[in-house]
């Protein structure tokens, strides 16, 4: 089923990890979807609302929402789980109109979209590597991309389900499996010492799996882990799930 998709590229991805956005665009086009990139996208407001500063978040959130209002599309897809969660919550917080709700109803995180809405029929290329999955918190516990390790409820894992059909791929997990990497937005600077220790532990846990890549769906966590991995000189690299999928299509 070919769809018209609007890309939601959060500011961090736009500015610091454009390759993730390019891979997202590319893979969606390879899957036969028509992809557009609405102009005027700003920050989702998360750095402010996560700090309790709702007044300061209002303008940027509403501008981002405006960028999508009235845009003709079947889905709005975002390759960053945490920003997507914040956008959903903040759009609703600052605009309770039907128009806003229409935008919210179309919002999907990339993995979620590829699992629930438009599954990938087959992959063309092999990816013969071991990857260690970074199950970032907001995608895991707020978007329910998989059953968190704390939950004894029904077991599912959308990330693994999307990736496991790539020929040759070997998926492993760090131990502990889904502990926070310590990024946490401004937490990384407000609580530098604890954030760094969490990041260091996470980076070492990924490296201990002997995987070649840490793969995740949340660019901000990957950026944080990348900085840690390079500081710790660990033999592993970060990749976004979009980059892995795009290369295999």
């Amino acid at each position, binding site marked *: 089923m070919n769809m018209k998709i609007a890309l939601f590229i959060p500011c961090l991805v736009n*500015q610091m990890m454009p390759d993730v956005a390019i891979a997202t665009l590319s893979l969606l086009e390879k899957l036969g979807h028509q992809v557009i*990139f609405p102009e005027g996208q700003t920050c989702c407001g998360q750095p402010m609302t996560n700090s309790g500063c709702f007044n300061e978040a209002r303008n940027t959130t509403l501008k981002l929402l405006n960028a999508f209002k009235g845009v003709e599309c079947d889905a709005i897809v975002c390759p960053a789980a945490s920003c997507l969660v914040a956008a959903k919550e903040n759009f609703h917080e600052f605009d309770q109109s039907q128009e806003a709700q229409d935008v919210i109803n179309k919002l999907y995180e990339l993995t979620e979209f590829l699992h629930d809405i438009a599954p990938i029929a087959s992959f063309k290329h092999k990816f013969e590597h071991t990857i260690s999955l970074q199950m970032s918190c907001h995608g895991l516990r707020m978007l329910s991309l998989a059953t968190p390790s704390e939950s004894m409820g029904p077991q599912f894992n959308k990330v693994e389900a999307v990736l496991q059909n790539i020929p040759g791929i070997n998926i492993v997990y760090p131990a502990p499996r889904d502990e926070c990497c310590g990024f946490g937005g401004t937490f990384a600077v407000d609580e530098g010492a604890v954030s760094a220790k969490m990041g260091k532990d996470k980076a070492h846990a990924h490296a201990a799996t002997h995987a070649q890549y840490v793969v995740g769906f949340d660019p901000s966590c990957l950026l944080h882990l990348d900085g840690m991995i390079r500081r710790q000189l660990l033999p592993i690299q970060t990749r976004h799930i979009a980059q892995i999928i795009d290369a295999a299509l």
Partner: protein
Amino acid sequence: MYQSKSHADNATIFCRDENRVDWHSKALWNLREKRDRAAASVPEWEQLRQLGSEIKLHTLSHLGDYLCQFEQKCIENGIQVHWAKDAIEHNAIALKILSTHSVKKLVKSKSMLTEECHLNPFLEKHGIEVIDTDLGERIIQLNNQPPSHIVVPAIHMKKEEVGELFHQKLNTPKGESDPTRLTRAARKHLRDQFLSADAAMTGVNMAIADLGAVVVCTNEGNADMGANLPKLQIHSMGIDKIVPDAESAMVLLRMLARNAIGQPITTYSSFYRGSKADGEMHIIIVDNGRTDIMQDKILAESLKCIRCGGCLNTCPVYRRSGGFSYNYTIPGPIGIAVGAQHDESNTIPWACTLCGSCSYVCPTKVPLDKIIAHHRRLKAEQGKLPFGKKYYMPAVGKLMSSPTLLNCAMGSARLALKVIPHSLIKPFSGAWGQYRELPVSPKSSFDTWYKQHKASNKEAK
């Protein structure tokens, strides 16, 4: 203690000894793993959590009625009931009861409420000797410290440190650090205290409204040894401890020890529905800020907590910053939830990545991450933002809301990352560059690339 410092400053001190952080984190993670196994062994676990949450919400929404029913039933059972608005009143009531019976020595079993009320120093000031009898509590009492965890209060101490403390205070052999032998020494020491105490005081895990009974859970047996020897027994409880009936208590009892330490139930779960023969039983019902919390419907859910400590064990920040970094009697996620208003440093709501693990671990589904985020908003509204946020957040908000401004700023940042040697940037990049490598600068932003890509695509067509 590090009273008025920020959580971040306290945590930075704690993090200086990395081996100790690893040791502390692992000990608590061990409890989380035990909890996972225990929870997985109960097929209806998630159903119990849902029921636990509903029971507590229902009780809280009819709390006035249930408190009155509880009091009435207690009186019928010959129990004396006291009401205390706050810590000062609680302590005064306790002192009055103890003085009436000329109590010289009081044995206490673990009660976070009496910690919250700072009862021990108050009674000691009035000439009453107070002995904490839970082993962990006794250790920290001898060490002159508050608890660093609500279930395992001495989790911050290594066995060698306990050994040295016992050598000084209980005369154990120098260098003795074997947990079994140290526990034996404490048993002997505390048994003398039990046998010579004039009164006992315990906390309350649950108070059953339709029975007029309190439930007290321990693994060591200290609450029951204490309460059942002297004539006088006193139980202090927060108003949030009420459950409607024994059936409701069972739902919570099935989860309490499993979620706390991975045990199917505490060794002793005792139901006191009246005093022993010739004895006297008192219950002090305490508010101390709980009715304030109930005025805010998001914060109110924190009163569903049954104090299992599961959220502390799973919290990646608590495990790496220690119980003394929170500026409140109760540390960790639940400590932030119920203690943030008392935090003069206004930083503890930010001692959290909002990862949400605690909310999924919680046996009564307290939405801890939502409550913590809400505390940040309340602090912001009260103009009590930490870390200079008050000054830089409006600027960030302005910057982020303008694609042009943001592009300019990030463009210069990318340029700076590219052209200036990182050794020069690092000192100015704050906590990020102190612990991590700075990001590798991409060539351009996505939107710039997209415009070029779209243009070249059109040309190709």
